[in-house]
């Protein structure tokens, strides 16, 4: 009896899991079957730092292509690659660094060659009143200044290590955070005196932080590539979205958000 109940339970559980799983593939299938010129949905997996400009670019793209809906999944680039590798239904991938795009191309997931569409550099962010009077990267090496960086395991931390090396400055951070957002949060709340984040993050944060530019930032430039994904059901639409981002209108939106041209 127990054994029968056990195997029945296993079957039930699998059925439940399968049911949950199939609702996803139903969703993907319905978008695929409705892929007529009138109704097309593409899903763009984009780095979290692109949330502002890409949402705007998506609206513009929809306005110019009647019947096309663009949905987004914004997350850390390494998480996005992992999801795409696990078979997540995505049509376009825009990464915050070439390293993560390389992982996708190495697995043959990208159609053609990805195009670089933007670059980003680091900037010092301080609370609006700049309590520690930070004016240069060298100021961050002062042990009295509470500096927050990204951990070296994540892209912004690797970039921070790069500028430190280029400038010959050794920063002793009070915390090594998981993401740019976490660094910015510590600066906005006034817990930290300064943090190293991207130019675009400072711009997006508005009045809540003060940006301090430093010349060594140009030594480490982060390049953003975009590519249509080979498994896309709407490859032509996906490709035209990627082209739209690299085109004049996309570039204008990205420039307004503080991104530089590659």
């Amino acid at each position: 009896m127990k054994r029968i109940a056990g195997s029945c339970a296993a079957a039930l559980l699998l059925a439940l899991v399968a049911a949950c799983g199939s609702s996803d593939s139903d969703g993907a299938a319905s978008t695929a079957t409705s892929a007529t010129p009138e109704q097309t949905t593409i899903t763009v997996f984009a780095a979290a730092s692109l949330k502002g400009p890409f949402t705007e670019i998506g609206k513009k793209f929809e306005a110019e292509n009647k019947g096309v809906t663009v949905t987004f999944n914004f997350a850390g680039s390494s998480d996005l690659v992992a999801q795409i590798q696990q078979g997540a239904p995505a049509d376009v991938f825009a990464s915050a660094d070439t390293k993560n795009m390389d992982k996708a191309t190495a697995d043959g997931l990208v159609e053609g060659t990805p195009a670089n569409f933007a670059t980003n550099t680091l900037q010092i962010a301080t609370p609006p009143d700049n309590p520690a009077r930070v004016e240069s990267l060298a100021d961050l090496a002062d042990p009295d200044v509470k500096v927050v960086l990204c951990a070296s395991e994540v892209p912004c931390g690797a970039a921070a290590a790069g500028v430190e090396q280029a400038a010959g400055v050794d920063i002793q951070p009070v915390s090594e955070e998981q993401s740019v957002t976490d660094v910015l949060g510590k600066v906005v709340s006034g817990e930290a005196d300064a943090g190293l984040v991207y130019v675009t993050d400072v711009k997006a944060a508005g009045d809540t932080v003060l940006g301090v530019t430093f010349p060594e930032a140009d030594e480490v430039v982060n390049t953003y590539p975009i590519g249509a994904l080979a498994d896309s059901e709407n490859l032509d639409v996906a490709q035209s979205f990627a082209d739209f981002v690299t085109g004049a209108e996309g570039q204008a939106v990205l420039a307004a958000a503080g991104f530089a041209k590659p």
Partner: protein
Amino acid sequence: MPRWIYLPAAAGALFIVLPLVAMASRVEWGQFWSLITSDSSRAALMLSLRTSAMATLLCVVLGVPMALVLARTTFRGQGLVRSLVLLPLVLPPVVGGIALLYTFGRKGLLGETIDVLGLQIAFSTTAVVIAQTFVSLPFLVVSLEGTLRTAGQRYEVVASTLGAPPTTVLRRVTLPLVLPGLAAGAVLSFARALGEFGATITFAGSLEGVTRTLPLEIYLQRESNPDAAVALSLVLVVVAVLVIGLVRGARGVEAP
């Protein structure tokens, strides 16, 4: 009980056990030992054990009086007080972290007072202990209050009619009587503190050996070294299993 109950019950059990089995199956056993004994892993584990022990101690110091007041007295608004005390139990930890930030942070409610005292809480190990105590205190209070109510007041009444002053009754009668419940509550608090993630990452930051506890280390390793993240996760699972065993042991001694 109808026999068909076994079916959903087994499915439920499987639902909990299967992910753990799946995770264990992903462990690179060949490198397991070197992964969990790397410098950063050891630093994170030692920090976690140290801060969780401190947090448990604080929970006992603050939680025992709280449980006594809730179990042995009645006052207006007691229900409300009890609900508030239980709040960290149901609050998303990241919310707890934000609340702590605006209390103990440099610009927080108590920030200036703390500054005057010359203490630095932000980005310190103290911040980790505060975050862990905040989330695990309710476990001790709930567990002990239940035990106190079950134990009843008979022996306490007898002791005081025989002339024992209140503090003596507490020390010689009440506390020995509820010791198993107190131990179980303390172990649960320790386990909760050990697993604390959200409040710590929001409030305390993340620096090796200072504020990067084991859960934070696991989350970070996921970025660059998923094998290490899985190995360290298994370590936490083993600790959790040990904790459950300890609680069951303590409860077993407890009088019904």
